[in-house]
Every structure is written in structure tokens, then in C-alpha cells.
């Protein structure tokens, strides 16, 4: 082989057997031999350098502190579990949004909904969670105080209604099953 052993190959020799060709070179080359000896010694010495161990009580305090900070975090939304009921509700919303827009401006009120509307009751309204999640994500603004899906959707601006429809189309387009 021409020249000395490369950095990469030198580390292979220092940490393990390396390749036969380089081993032979090192045996014949004093410079590489010295470098390899130094690397092996350095690795051994470094491995022996510990960090100061905190008092045993520290670890319990550490866990408690992480726990406290997690409690202060907003609840993490388990999106994977939300999508099935969410899409069911969303399909209803999409249908409902389309009906008033066909009737022209000013006709989009809850009174236009048929009595058999598939919208869930406010007590079991997973669609609200979806709207809130989209709002939390900055994708649309939901009026404060609305506690029914229909009222929340009705209060959406045209831009937000479009954003909601786009979000729903995007999820349906990913092939999620209802």
C-alpha cells in the first residue's frame, strides 16, 4: 500500500483487528505504529474518565421535576385514535357546509339541517375535538364559547371553512378508512 494508514483505517486498527494490509503496514512503519499505540492508550484512558455521580437522591428529584414539567405541558393529542370518530363527524360537517353554500349567501344556518342530521350530540361530539385540534395547530380559528359542532362550524369564516374542507380532503385522500 502507498503512504500511511488513513484516519479511518487507523481507528479500525485501534478499536479492532482492522484489515490485514494495514496491519502489515503498521508493523513495518514506525510512525504509524507509534500513532496506533497512542490511539489505543488514549481510548483506554478516556474510557476510564467518569463524570461525577450525583447523590442518589438526585435521581428521584430529577424524575419528579421532569414529571412536574410534563404535567405543565398541554395534553398530548392522540391523533391516531381521533381520526375514526373525527372523520365520521367531519363527513357530516362537509355535507352540511356544502348544502348552505349551494343555497346562496345567508342560508347557512342550523335551521337548514334536516331532523335526521348525522351530527353527534354535544355530549358526544368528537368533531369538536377535531376543530379544537385544528385551532390549536393554527389552521383555523374557532369562536370561543361554542360547545356544539354545528354552532362552531356555522361561526367559521369562509377562509376557515375552506381550510377545514381542505384538511378533511387531505385526510380522506390519504386513504384513511371511516
Amino acid at each position, binding site marked *: 500500500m502507498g503512504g500511511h494508514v488513513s484516519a479511518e483505517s487507523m481507528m479500525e486498527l485501534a478499536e479492532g483487528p482492522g484489515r490485514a494490509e494495514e496491519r502489515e503496514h503498521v508493523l513495518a512503519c514506525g510512525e504509524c505504529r507509534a500513532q496506533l499505540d497512542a490511539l489505543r492508550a*488514549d*481510548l483506554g484512558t478516556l474510557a476510564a474518565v467518569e463524570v461525577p455521580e450525583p447523590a442518589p437522591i438526585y435521581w428521584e428529584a430529577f424524575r419528579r421535576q421532569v414529571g412536574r414539567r410534563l404535567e405543565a405541558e398541554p395534553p*398530548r393529542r392522540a391523533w391516531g385514535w381521533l381520526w375514526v370518530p373525527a372523520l365520521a363527524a367531519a363527513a357530516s360537517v362537509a355535507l352540511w357546509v356544502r348544502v348552505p353554500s349551494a343555497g346562496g349567501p345567508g342560508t347557512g344556518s342550523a335551521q337548514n339541517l334536516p331532523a335526521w342530521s348525522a351530527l353527534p350530540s354535544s355530549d358526544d361530539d368528537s368533531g369538536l375535538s377535531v376543530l379544537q385540534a385544528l385551532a390549536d395547530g393554527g389552521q383555523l380559528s374557532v369562536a370561543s364559547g361554542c360547545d356544539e359542532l354545528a354552532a362552531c362550524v356555522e361561526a367559521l369564516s369562509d377562509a376557515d371553512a375552506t381550510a377545514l374542507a381542505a384538511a378533511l380532503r387531505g385526510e380522506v385522500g390519504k386513504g384513511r378508512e371511516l
Partner: protein
Amino acid sequence: MTISMPIPAGALAAVAAARAAPPREQEHEAILACQRGEREAFDRLVERYQRAVYRLCYRYVNNHEDANDMAQEAFLRAYRAISKFRGDSSFATWLYRIAVNTCLNFRAARKPEPVELPEALADGRPGAAEHVEYEQRARRIREAVTLLPEKQRATLILKIYHDLTHEEVAGILGSTVGTVKANLFHALGNLRKRLGPQAAAAWGKE
């Protein structure tokens, strides 16, 4: 020689539980629980990895306060991102990647803690002087590590102190195995230069 001593019942129960569910399985269950939104399950992961993450952070900054802050921050980031963990790598590797990124984004605000030599030297117990000498040497080396270029520092810490393979280190740092080896080589060379001509002796060849 064998040592005989009474074993508390609680300890036996803990051992039985540990045997019933190997650590990897417990870890997997905890991860799944976290992904379902069960925040308490994360505590088990913190307990399992807090030492490793703290030590990784400590080697970056060489002081307890910053290491504590960074380690906590790394766990918070891991919790926020745990829904994205798919098991493509081990959880440890995934967590170390987060910890390394936390460290890389962190700008140390505190200087390394001074070594309390006078008190230590005043200790008249056998071996105290050797202990002080070791601490001085270890501290000097740890400080030199914190001054390495970031990639070299990360490579050296992960490879030497966390027993990761070159492939795992490459995965964490987003580089290649060849780069990891070269970075480690240059890190060792830089440390030797930084520690001066007496390095060989000071590094434990006596």
C-alpha cells in the same frame, strides 16, 4: 466466599416482576402507553435512561446545573415527539439523538464548576491524594472534551461513553460510518494537542 443476608420480601417481588417482563418488553409497553397518551408511563422511561442522558449532557458541558437542565429538556422533547417513534432504531438511539440535538442547540451559560481542592486535600484518609490527582486529571480531560468541535465531541462521547456502534453513532449524527471513524481519530488527535506534551504521562501511563 458467599455472603448471606436476609432479603426483604419487596425485593423478591421486584425481582419476580423484572423476570416476568424483561426490560426491553417493559420499555416497549411504556412506549406504547405513552403513545396512547398515558403520561405516567413516561416516568418508567425516564427512570431507565436518566443516568445515561444526564451523563451524555454532562460530558457536553462539564457542569451539573447545565447537564441537569439539558437532560430534562431532552426528556421533554422526547415526550413531545414520542408519537413519532416507530422503532426503526432502538429507543436508546432515538433518545440519544434527541439529547445530542438538545446539547448542540444549547449554549452553555455556566462555567465549569471549580474543583474544591482545599477540602479534598485536607482529607487525610489513605488514597485521598491519589483521588484528588485522579479528579484533577479527569476534570482536565473532560474540559478538553467540551472544547472539541461539535461533531468530534458528539462522536467521541457517543462512541466511548455510550458503547454505541459506529453505525449507531452515524445514525444519530446523520453521517456515515467512515466519517464517524475519521471524527473520532481527529477528536483524539485534538485532545492530545490540547492537553499538551505531558498528555501521555497525565493520561494514565504512569
